[in-house]
């Protein structure tokens, strides 16, 4: 082996070893790298209790209720398996919508309601013109209707 090949091999082995080390460290810290917990994880007591953490999921359709004071909002976050009621006082981001993604930071109350101090909207990676979105929505509604009539 020529010295330069030795150096190349040393670099390759070094990068590979470093990659493995980083992979193991990231695995070990996996829980701390999670930006939010899902309602299923909260229900399964995997989220830190008594401490501030974030939850993420979809705002359940038809669950958003504004209280009489006008600033408190209550809604349910779902990951389609489990749901979690959330209460929040403050302004909501523009993209906060029913059926869309949301990330909320706060604490879990003793009554099982998540008291959020901050609510962020999590949008998806799909981009399309409004007409296309409308068409997709219509197609879904028709499909739902068809499956419903078939079930009968």
């Amino acid at each position, binding site marked *: 082996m020529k010295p*330069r*090949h030795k*150096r*190349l091999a040393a*670099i390759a082995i*070094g*990068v590979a070893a*470093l*990659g493995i080390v*980083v992979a193991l460290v*990231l695995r070990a810290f*996996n829980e701390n*790298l*999670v*930006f*939010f*917990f*899902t309602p299923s994880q909260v229900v399964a007591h995997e989220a830190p209790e008594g401490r501030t953490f974030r939850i*993420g999921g979809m705002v359940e359709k038809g669950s958003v209720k504004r209280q009489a004071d006008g600033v408190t909002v209550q809604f349910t976050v779902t990951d389609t398996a489990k749901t979690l009621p959330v209460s929040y006082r403050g302004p*909501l*981001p*523009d*993209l*906060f919508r029913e059926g*869309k993604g949301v*990330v909320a930071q706060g604490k879990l109350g003793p009554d099982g309601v998540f008291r959020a101090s*901050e*609510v*962020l*909207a*999590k*949008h*998806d*990676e*799909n*981009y*399309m*013109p*409004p*007409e*296309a*979105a*409308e068409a997709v929505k219509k197609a879904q509604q028709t499909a739902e209707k068809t499956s419903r009539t078939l079930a009968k």
Partner: protein
Amino acid sequence: MSARSIHWFWYASPQTFYPLAGAIGRLAAPAAAVLALVGLYIGLFVAPTDAQQGEAYRIIFIHVPAAWMSMFLYVVMAFWAAIGLAFNTRLSAMMARALAPTGALFTFIALWTGSLWGKPTWGTYWVWDARLTSELILLFLYLGFMALQASIDDTRRADRAGALLAIVGVVNVPIIYYSVQWWNTLHQGASVSLKSGSSMAPIMLWGMLVMALAFWMYSIAVAMARVRCIIRERGEA
């Protein structure tokens, strides 16, 4: 060495590469300008409004190509740094040095535009999720590389120290790319991937790809200009 292998490495010498770099730069610079104009025209005038985000999504035409280039340039820089370290080729180390400022610029643009995009859509300029944090680390890697090389007077030692840092930092690139799959992040997943194609309207995708090509040509043009300066500085032209 045989005559053939000498021919193969003809442009590995700074002296012969110097005029070639000039020629490449002269082609890449106008290409970058034309592609950027076409890309921005598609992005700002042709592409339709987004159903979910309205006009705010249009920053994607800068944000995503800049983020792609920030990661890609780092890999190219680390590649040249590794070649320079292994084979002691002078030009490779100069290439690594020439790419760093452009990579840092694109990383900064990606972070900055992302922050401007985050406020109206997510509701915040910054969060410490895995994608944003690893991209910020990338910026520090670029800045660290440049600072380290600038702090050592002996160019050979500076190149070697920088190369080591560049190679170590390359593990961060797959972390940035896969962060949105490996962990729960506020940042959405990739809209364009080799495996599952694109989840964007075709015209939006085209605008983004043309802009990516424009940034690519820009990177080539400025890297070539910079490498020519470095060759001259080191008295090898």
